[in-house]
């Protein structure tokens, strides 16, 4: 049990170090990457298994007692997010075996992915605010290097914005942490949760709260801090974007949900209306940006922003159902969105372009891919019976129950626009004929054969490496829809643990486990 809590950090660290040492051997790097990913998945499943009965696992690093040392805590929310990390990590690693070119791999693509996964897992595991900062930075430095890996000029330009914004966010995080420590004398989440109920002086805490909100908001790409994301996410190779979209913004959301449901609950009259506005504006600006885009990866990047807004509904409505829905939504959207980016990667690999008006006809030339895209897109848009439907249903219902009619209406309208932009991709990429096919010849057979000829031939093993992780993710979103009842039992329990932190406090501060 003891070792199990550090496993999601240790496994990627060991994998990163080993593949750094063995960087001359591609074969070794690839097997380490896959084994490491599988190891993470195993550890995440066992952690979820341990947390599923509602118990909270605690590990005091270095055996220092709780409010002074660093604790690693796994409650149901953390366990679910860790599982998500491991699933997306493994899927992207397998996909990368085919989709990442040799120079990038030589430079150390796989070690960096491991370091990134380590940072994300650490952020989900830690029970200490400053330690959260440290894991954020671990994750960030890996993401910086992944973003510029390859050194193309547009990558460098995208990276400058990304790095600047994230460094600013880190500075704000630090200031918020410093002020919070000055006010409360502790940074342990459990101690803070205990204090937050009793503290009457709100002004100083609110300053920290707003600083945290801005810092996590930048990282999660919340309105009005979203602009860096579409500007930088489409520049790196697709597996990197898929990894970022699946995990990085979700860490921001996780941090927001964790702190604003456990620590900054002293003044919900102040924070809740703030989140209502932020959630609505994030949803609207994101989806409007997406509708206007003519390039697949940029379009999907704007959708990330829009979906962050949905996840914020959990904090805006702030009822157990809303938080549970938000957690479910975060899991759903990370999986569906990563799947969609992987589709974009496949399109880029076979057509060399993802600009909507330049490509077409994939329905005929890649029917399996089309089917997978359709499932993921419908799930994202929120049609039953996929996971997106249940996630949005829970969020909208929670909004209506709490009397936030406007927010619920916005969520529904944005859902329609999401569907519209997904249909745009469908029409342009898959349905319409390939615009590069010879136009004079009207006979369909020759047009399609010309389209088929334009497909860069992928070897069958590369095809398998592209399709397999994609299919697994799509399967997962289908399963999450079919087994929504079971998943909601978990997320309900996770939301309860967040809203009633007594159990968390007892697990961390009270006696030996």
């Amino acid at each position, binding site marked *: 049990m*003891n*070792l199990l809590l*550090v496993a999601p950090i*240790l496994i990627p660290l060991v994998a990163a170090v080993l593949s*750094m*040492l063995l*960087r001359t051997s591609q074969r070794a790097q690839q097997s380490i990457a896959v084994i490491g990913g599988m190891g993470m998945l195993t550890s995440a499943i066992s952690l979820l298994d341990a947390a599923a009965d509602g118990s909270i696992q605690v590990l005091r*690093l270095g055996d220092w007692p709780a409010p002074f040392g660093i604790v690693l805590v796994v409650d149901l929310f953390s366990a679910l997010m860790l599982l998500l990390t491991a699933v997306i990590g493994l899927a992207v690693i397998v996909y990368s075996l085919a989709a990442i070119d040799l120079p990038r791999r030589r430079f150390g693509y796989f070690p960096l992915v491991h370091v990134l996964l380590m940072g994300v897992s650490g952020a989900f595991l830690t029970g200490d605010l400053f330690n959260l900062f440290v894991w954020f930075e671990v994750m960030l430095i890996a993401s910086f290097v992944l973003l510029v890996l390859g050194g193309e000029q547009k990558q460098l330009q995208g990276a400058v914005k990304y790095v600047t914004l994230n460094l600013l966010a880190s500075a704000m995080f630090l200031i918020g942490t410093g002020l919070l420590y000055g006010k409360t004398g502790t940074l342990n989440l459990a101690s803070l949760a205990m204090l937050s109920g009793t503290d009457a002086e709100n002004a100083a805490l609110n300053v920290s709260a707003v600083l945290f909100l801005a810092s996590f908001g930048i990282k999660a790409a919340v309105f009005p801090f979203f602009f860096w994301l579409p500007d930088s996410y489409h520049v790196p190779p697709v597996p990197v974007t898929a990894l970022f979209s699946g995990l990085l913004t979700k860490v921001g959301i996780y941090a927001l949900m964790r702190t604003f449901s456990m620590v900054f609950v002293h003044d919900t009259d102040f924070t809740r209306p703030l989140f209502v506005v932020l959630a609505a504006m994030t949803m609207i600006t994101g989806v409007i940006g997406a509708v206007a885009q003519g390039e697949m990866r940029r379009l999907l990047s704007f959708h990330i922003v829009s979906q962050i807004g949905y996840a914020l509904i959990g904090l805006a409505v702030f009822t157990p159902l809303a938080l549970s829905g938000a957690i479910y939504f975060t899991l759903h959207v990370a999986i569906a969105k990563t799947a969609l980016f992987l589709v974009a990667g496949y399109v880029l690999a076979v057509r060399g372009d993802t600009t909507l008006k330049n490509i077409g006809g994939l329905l005929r030339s890649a029917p399996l891919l089309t089917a997978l895209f359709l499932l993921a897109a419908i799930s994202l848009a929120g049609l039953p019976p996929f996971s997106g439907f249940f996630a949005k249903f829970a969020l909208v219902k929670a909004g209506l129950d709490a009397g936030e009619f406007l927010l619920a209406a916005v969520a529904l309208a944005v859902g329609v626009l999401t569907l519209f932009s997904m249909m745009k991709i469908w029409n342009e990429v898959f349905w319409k004929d390939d615009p590069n096919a010879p136009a004079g010849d009207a006979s369909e057979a020759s047009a399609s054969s010309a389209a088929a000829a334009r497909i860069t031939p992928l070897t069958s093993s590369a095809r398998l490496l592209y399709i397999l992780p994609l299919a697994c993710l799509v399967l997962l979103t289908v399963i999450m829809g079919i087994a929504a009842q079971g998943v909601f039992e978990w997320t309900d329990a996770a939301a309860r643990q967040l809203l009633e932190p007594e159990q968390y406090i007892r697990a961390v501060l009270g006696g030996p486990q």
Partner: protein
Amino acid sequence: MSSVILRIAARSLTPLLSLASLFLLLRGHNAPGGGFIGGLLAASAIAFYAMALGPAPARRWLRIVPRTLLAVGLLVALSAGLPALIAGRPFLTGMWWHPELPFIGSLPLGTPLWFDLGVYLAVIGFVLTIFFALVEAEGEGG
């Protein structure tokens, strides 16, 4: 950077600075010093050498690729957590060992020192990776 004085100074100062960095590393448990600051000093010693004589001789002087050093350092720091696991304590718990040595007496050795050694190597590796990337026109990058 072709000053004779600088080149001569670099040749003799780099080993001295490296020695001083080891001193900082070892005294760091209870006094100011430690793996990070020691590593920085060692890295700047090699950086100084590179500035005086060029990055290629500095790489030869170092013999090991900085990124390997970084990886080994991480591995060493990581392994410092393992003795605690064998003893059934939480990961990274400080464990101590007091061997009796002739002339010195009881010498306290602990996993914190081993961890610091890992930090020392990792810092040298990291700083030099970045440094060589900055100095060499078409180097390996960050």
